């Protein structure tokens, strides 16, 4: 046996090494000369160590198993045990299974380029169809309705008028000055204005407050006076005379 050549070979695992030893020795896996194989197996591990190769624990576990089998076979057969039981049984099963899958791998392996010459298309992206719209029962009335709808909607979208906003815009700004001017103008034309009449046209709280303050301010400035519930413009002459 060409041991040197054999020893340069690297084995992936203990079963592969064991299988090689069985094949090298040309022995039947069902009748492994366990002493010979165990010795060669251990020699190989020693060789690996000498070559500074890391002997993984898997190899050591197998070595221990081989030694156990070897020792069991040296012991005299115990009558209580099943006569058929061979300590090598587990080993045989391992090697057998390994061999089966080695062959299976060969068959599978040759197929790895089988699909190389065929090509597939990416899935087509098709726009999802709109199912609830058909032109089938479309007539002139529906078109008119559609147009009316659009116009109505356009009306809604148009800028709302100022009046529509009046209720929303609660804080309309009313100045006291503007109310003072308004009152003086009214007195200019009609000489006298009923106190309540002045507030009649006002519809916001803000405006009424401003109007009231305007009346007070004009009284303070001696521009107007109140005569029996009527607002009257104070005569110019009084100031002139003063």
């Amino acid at each position, binding site marked *: 046996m060409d041991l040197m050549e054999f020893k340069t070979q690297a084995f992936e695992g203990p079963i592969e090494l064991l299988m090689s030893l069985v094949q090298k020795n040309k022995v039947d896996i069902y009748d492994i000369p366990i002493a010979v194989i165990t010795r060669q197996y251990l020699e190989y591990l020693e060789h690996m160590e000498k070559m500074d190769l890391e002997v993984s624990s898997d190899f050591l576990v197998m070595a221990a198993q081989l030694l156990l089998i070897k020792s069991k076979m040296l012991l005299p057969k115990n009558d209580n045990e099943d006569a058929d039981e061979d300590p090598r049984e587990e080993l045989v099963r391992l090697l057998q*299974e390994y061999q089966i*899958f080695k062959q*299976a*791998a060969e068959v*599978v*392996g040759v197929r790895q380029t*089988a699909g190389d010459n*065929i090509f597939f298309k990416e899935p*087509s992206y098709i726009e999802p169809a709109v199912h609830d719209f058909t032109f089938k029962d479309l007539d002139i009335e529906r078109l008119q309705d559609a147009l009316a709808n659009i116009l109505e909607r356009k009306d809604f979208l148009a800028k709302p008028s100022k009046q529509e906003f009046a209720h929303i815009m609660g804080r309309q700004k009313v100045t006291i000055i503007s109310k003072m001017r308004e009152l003086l103008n009214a007195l200019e034309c009609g000489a006298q204005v009923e106190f309540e009449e002045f507030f009649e046209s006002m519809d916001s709280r803000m405006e009424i407050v401003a109007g009231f303050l305007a009346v007070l301010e004009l009284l303070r400035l001696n521009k107007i006076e109140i005569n029996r519930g009527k607002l009257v413009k104070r005569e110019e002459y009084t100031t002139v005379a003063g």
Partner: protein
Amino acid sequence: MNVQGIIEAALFAAGDGIESAKLAEIAGVTPEQLSGIIAEMESEYGSGMRGVKIIRVGTKYQMSTRDEYGIFVSKIVTPKIFKPLSAAAVEVLAIIAYKQPVTRQFIEKIRGVECKFSIIKLLERDLIEESGRVDAPGRPVLYSVTECFLRTFGLASLDELPPLSQFQTEALSAEEGEMENDDIMVNS
């Protein structure tokens, strides 16, 4: 409406495989009728040396280009080129293909060596996938081959692989063969 036309159009548009049950439903035929119709289409495609063919991938049907035209197709489509799998990876793949779903521990027991790296490689190539977990301590992952495996290895299903028993008989000695015969006689 032509049933073959429906099937052809659906397979073309889908690109991916279509479940045979779904395809039968679309075409308005029974799954049994479907396989007959597709076999018919396939023989027509074949005899006409058409550019496409229909393949079965597991429970799906898929349209692909015909092998003979591969060299022409590869001039416009760059095929993905993979390095051949290592011997170890092929062994792991074979064990999964024959025994799926299996755990890494199962594979390692058969091969007597760690195979984490091979599994990672095979997962990367989308040839195997995690198909579940064992309801046992540590909940180990189960691996199975993928549809991509079937396509890559030119298989319609795993049944197309030669049965393991074929290798078994080759590996078995005459002694074991006799035992098998005895078993058969007892059974009959």
